């Protein structure tokens, strides 16, 4: 693709009324069931995420099926709506397999033309929140790595697979094609790892003599995996936006209330300018994240560029906002009880997920024909 001065698709960067309604529904559920103390407690427990909360989100609100057409058992909405859900999940650093199962795995299956057959069945289950599935690739794999992922056989170990510990099904890319492997079957070992971000569990997956159902041949599978990773990266930007927004809001609140030198510390210009700068970044991140969601929803030809731009930008904003949040909270920000650290860990891990900003810069360079020297 060459750089086009004007893209055919005019993006809609605002939120619709329906999207705002969806946001309120998700937010009130999360406020009631996944506040900061609950999330901290969950990270210290052995369960990867709250099953009941997941059921309410996935099937109660119907969030799991947003990307899936009605005839395939979903809500027939799209990426713009799923992005709103992710903003809220980011705002609460909620442990839930939404990005991995309801976005990435779901998109992979959708791209396989799944009417009927095992892919269609699985898709309907994911959309209804009856099962969860994850793509068995390292969490750091960028969309550009999809083709390279189609290699090897079913015998393998894959590290840092996000949300695998509680998943029912693994989507495994091999040289022959894409397989669906049930995690409960023989020959499948899912070993939890110790993640930097405790709110998104990672596991090492080992397949040795496991049985799998072939969903697609290598060619179409590669296209589908790439589509899944592209959607994951694109909508991750909305999660990052939610993280950044929470960090800014909370920092503003804290520095307005915290008094030192007989005045609120937020009244020092040194801090005011930094928070104002963050605001500018959050505003910009919102535009980039909305653009990626809208381009994915529309199937726009420049979706890969929109996603790369959003990832290259929003990753940094989320990390910056979380780092400022810790710093401007002072000693409190360094403690375990205060949730700031959860956001920092999530933001930092997210900046590696589906490709680092540097990888996405390379994609931008390729797509815009601005090669390295």
């Amino acid at each position, binding site marked *: 693709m060459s750089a086009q001065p004007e893209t055919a698709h005019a993006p809609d960067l605002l939120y619709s009324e329906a999207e705002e309604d969806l946001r309120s529904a998700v937010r009130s559920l999360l406020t009631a069931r996944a506040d900061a103390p609950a999330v901290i407690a969950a990270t210290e427990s052995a369960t990867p995420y709250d099953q009941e909360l997941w059921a309410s989100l996935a099937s109660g609100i119907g969030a799991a099926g947003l990307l899936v057409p009605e005839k395939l058992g979903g809500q027939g909405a799209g990426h713009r709506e799923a992005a709103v859900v992710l903003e809220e999940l980011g705002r609460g650093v909620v442990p839930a397999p939404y990005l991995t199962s309801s976005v990435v795995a779901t998109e992979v299956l959708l791209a396989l033309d799944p009417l009927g057959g095992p892919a269609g069945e699985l898709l309907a289950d994911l959309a209804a929140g009856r099962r969860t599935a994850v793509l068995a690739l*390292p*969490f*750091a794999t960028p969309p550009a790595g999809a083709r390279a992922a189609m290699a090897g056989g079913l015998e393998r170990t894959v*590290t*840092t697979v996000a949300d695998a510990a509680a998943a029912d099904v693994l989507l495994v890319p091999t040289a022959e094609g894409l397989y669906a492997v049930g995690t409960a079957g023989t020959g499948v070992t899912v070993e939890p*790892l*110790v*993640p*930097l*971000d*405790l709110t998104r569990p*990672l596991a090492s997956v080992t397949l040795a003599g496991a049985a799998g159902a072939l969903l697609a041949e290598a060619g179409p599978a590669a296209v589908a995996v790439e589509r899944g990773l592209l959607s994951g990266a694109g909508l991750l930007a909305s999660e990052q936006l939610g993280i950044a927004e929470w960090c800014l809001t909370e920092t503003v609140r804290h520095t307005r209330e915290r*008094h*030192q*030198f*007989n*005045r609120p*510390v937020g009244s*020092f210009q*040194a*801090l005011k300018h930094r928070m104002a700068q963050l605001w500018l970044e959050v505003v910009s991140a919102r535009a980039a994240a909305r653009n990626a969601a809208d381009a994915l929803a529309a199937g726009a030809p420049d979706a890969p560029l929109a996603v790369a731009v959003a990832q290259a930008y929003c990753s940094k904003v989320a*990390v910056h906002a979380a*780092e400022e949040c*810790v*710093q401007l909270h*002072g*000693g409190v*920000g*360094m*403690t*375990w*009880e205060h949730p*700031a*650290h959860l956001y*920092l*860990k999530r933001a*930092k*891990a997210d*900046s*590696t*997920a589906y490709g*680092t*900003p*540097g*990888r996405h*810069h*390379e994609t931008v360079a390729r797509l815009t024909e601005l090669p*390295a020297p």
Partner: protein
Amino acid sequence: MTAATDADAIRRRTQDLLAAHPPATTGRAEFLRARFDAGLAWVHYPAGLGGLGAPRSLQAVADAELAAAGAPDNDPRRIGIGLGMAAPTILGYGTDEQKQRFLRPLWLGEEVWCQLFSEPGAGSDLAALGTRAVRDGDDWVVDGQKVWTSSAHVARWAILIARTDPGLPKHRGISYFVCDMTDPGVEVRPLRQITGEAEFNEVFLTGVRIPDSHRLGPVGEGWKVAQTTLMNERVSIGGARIPREGGMIGTVAKTWREHPGLRTHDLHQRLLTLWVEAEVARLTGERLRQQLVAGQPGPEGSGMKLAFARLNQEISGLEVELLGDEGLLYGDWTMRRPEIVDFTGRDAGYRYLRSKGNSIEGGTSEVLLNIVAERVLGLPAEPRNDKDVAWKDLAR
């Protein structure tokens, strides 16, 4: 320069010490005691207190000779607060008795120290502290709560500031004490931090009795004494001498060299920028030391902690990204209570998280920048409405 205090004299003394106590056959504690008594612990301290009254710069001569001979050191990491902060304050403000009592076990590492300064309501604005010390005969009775106290769980002694006159403006009603951490009124509770471990603590002081002989400096002048501690704290956090590629930059450079597969253009640019900045920070520290030796101390000291914090954070952040899949993992979240404060150890994730404290502990970067702006550049201070009001009348 007198015979006792030039480099050759130091070298001779060091060789005498090594001859009388060969490191290979002398126990660690015995060697350290002999070193202290030979005046080679901190040569700029007075004779009898571990020093020779020599210029500070000559310590490097002794250290180099001792290191070359394989002599044990006094593990400055473990005793950082005592060495870097309590000792210079005791030296500056202590009575002869206090110096005799505290300095030797402190340097030998037999007694660990902590710093009971910060409180929930008084961090950057340390002078707003509310812990009370009330005179009772020959003792002071102390009540209050301290927070973020690193190493309180292993400390034998603490430097403590407390309010002795709430009727005076906040800077004038403070006194400075040495607090016995084994006093029954001292309760230390672990405070878990971002890294998962509990390196710092909350400390509750209830009817703690401190003899007046453990006061440092005059009653009501604790703020002035505390300034000495804080200045030394800043220098001791950012001021360590390191070789090229020492510290965090060395770790990430090694990772880079060993993992070609992880490289991207973006990371390369950032790595080189940080490499240059780390090298320049090292040179700035070196220049500062040379200025000190030449007797022209510059204000760069205030900048070293700022540079140290920013570099540690950016370099460790880069390393987490560089490591890709491995950077998504963490070594261990178990709540431990480490004996030493460890900035550079363990995995990249730990270093990244711990380094966030570097711009908060020992004075935040924002507060240090204010100090540079006002005291170094002479810019006008922010208007203040807290300086002349009695502490008890301040809004809290």
